[in-house]
């Protein structure tokens, strides 16, 4: 009976009960076909691979004792949330991981699928699905070893729910990797004014400063939802060389690695009740389509 109640609630509030922001989706729709032009709109994301892939790879290698020569991420199941055109999914796939890439925008998934189809190895290792994170929670409980949410959390509507869903689909002691932008004066000046309006390395209107997330807030949300934050690193983009580097300061861009606690999640009546309670307030606070 309780599950029926849950289902009804979900259907009633499904349009606003989501971490996907539809305004954000419209922005990305316009440039969906430009993902794979390395010199184009997304060149900064392409070059971000030079630091975020080694970060993910080395963190995971340090945590595990198995090593397959030539395939460092072999046997690792990765979820790439907000995968876009698959810019990060493909290198992780090449390193041996089984990657599931999800993105709410169908055009992005179409682009990603087409791009991986020419590579016989990647075509098998990566699966793309047009979906939001919430939509896969039920069928993917505790399925993934690793979740990467790179340049995504600054676009979601409800960050805490996003994190809760990450926790649900992640295996105990699984890793969550987030890269995003801090909410500071500096990030406004450099991240929006300069990046979008002056130099144009980010398509105009991509980011809204209001939705930027300070690392302290992200860390607090993670810790209070069953994660233990292991690493926080500042990142800096050099527009002249087109390359990224690690820096001490997290004032603009930063990366975070968190690990889900080892206690197994069990769905008990008390848990389901508290989920229903928290559903009601956020239904009214959610954005409308």
């Amino acid at each position, binding site marked *: 009976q309780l599950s029926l109640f849950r289902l009804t609630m979900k259907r009633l509030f499904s349009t606003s009960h989501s971490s996907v922001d539809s305004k954000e989706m419209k922005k990305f729709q316009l440039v969906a076909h430009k993902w794979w032009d390395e010199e184009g709109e997304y060149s900064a994301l392409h070059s971000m*691979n030079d630091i975020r892939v080694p970060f993910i*790879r080395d963190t995971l290698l340090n945590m595990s004792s198995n090593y397959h020569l030539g395939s460092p991420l072999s046997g690792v199941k990765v979820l790439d949330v907000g995968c876009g055109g698959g810019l990060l999914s*493909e290198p992780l*796939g090449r390193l041996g991981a089984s990657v599931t890439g999800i993105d709410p925008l169908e055009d992005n998934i179409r682009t990603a699928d087409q*791009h991986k189809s020419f*590579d016989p190895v990647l075509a098998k290792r990566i699966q793309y699905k047009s979906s939001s994170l919430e939509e896969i929670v039920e069928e993917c409980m505790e399925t993934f070893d690793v979740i990467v949410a790179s340049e995504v959390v600054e676009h979601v509507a409800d960050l805490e729910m996003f994190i809760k869903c990450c926790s649900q689909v992640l295996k105990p002691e699984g890793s969550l990797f987030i890269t995003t932008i801090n909410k500071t004066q500096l990030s406004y000046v450099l991240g929006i004014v300069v990046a979008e309006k002056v130099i144009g390395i980010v398509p105009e209107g991509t980011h809204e400063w209001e939705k930027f997330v300070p690392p302290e807030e992200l860390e607090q949300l993670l810790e209070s939802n069953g994660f233990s934050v292991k690493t926080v690193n500042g990142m800096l983009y050099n527009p002249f060389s087109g390359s990224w580097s690690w820096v001490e300061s997290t004032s603009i861009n930063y990366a975070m690695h968190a690990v889900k606690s080892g206690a197994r999640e069990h769905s008990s009546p008390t848990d389901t009740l508290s989920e229903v309670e928290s559903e009601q307030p956020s239904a009214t606070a959610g954005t409308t389509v």
Partner: protein
Amino acid sequence: VWDACSEALIVFEKDDLDDMGYIVENDVIMSAITKQLDAVADRVEVFYGSRAVGYTWPLPSHSCDTSPWVQIELADGRRLQTKLLIGADGHKSVVRKEAEIKNIEHRYDQSAVVATLHLSEATDNNVAWQRFLPTGPIALLPLSDTASSLVWSTSHEHASELLAMDEEGFVDSINSAFWSNVNHSDFIDTAGALFRSAISLLKPSGTAVRQLPPSVAKVDPESRAMFPLGMGHATEYVQHRVALIGDAAHRVHPLAGQGVNLGFGDIACLAHHLSAAAFNGSDLGSLKHLLKFETERQRHNVSLIAATDVLKRLYSTRLAPLVLLRTWGLQATNALPPLKVRI
């Protein structure tokens, strides 16, 4: 190494340095490579006796339905596709031509005559000799205690004559080239001797005791061959999904014995950048790391190719002022250990 027009010479000795180099017969290298290929036969497939007849290049931007990889058609009709095509097909590279990469080339009016020679007497054959004749350098590279390899760069006509000669005539020409002093002029000899005394005043050990090159008795009958010489340099070593290495990228005069070494350097550099890219999960054909390879190698290769070309031109003349310049230059270089070590 010494000049035919003067007494100037330069000696590089092992005592001051680690092993200066190795002379290895081509067959030995080929056999070693084949052994290594057999060891990785599960990852490397070699199509012997096959030829590529056509290439289809990918369009740079990924908006279309055609494959973004390079397509290759073989003579037997098979088709291959690859993320990265490496052109190692020599100075007349077809890959380079098909990729429309411009090549700066210059033909020297010289050909090189090569042969395997048998020495008159067995000797501790561990010295490589090179004498700069006005027609071009003649070099003897040791192979064993009784055999040496000849590389004689000279005019096309002379090269043809040398090939046409009978064995005795050929052997006589070689010995005479190493021993004869016909090209000396009194003026240069005196000037050289003066400079040498000046050096020995300043730096007593700075002049070398003269060693003597071995003399030749016989030639291996099948081993005489000639090939034309030239200089070449590709304006680009890489393009999207293409890389050129070895003589396909650059071609140099044999006087410094560096041609194949430049190729080996290219391979080491490309392998390093590709393996770093692979460890980052990158697409191997991506220009980003290919350009790093190109920059690194062009920086190294261009200076060596230019220097070799300058040396070749400098030593191609009998004109007194230039001979004097190179005579003194060589004597000075011989007396300066830091400079010799750098070379």
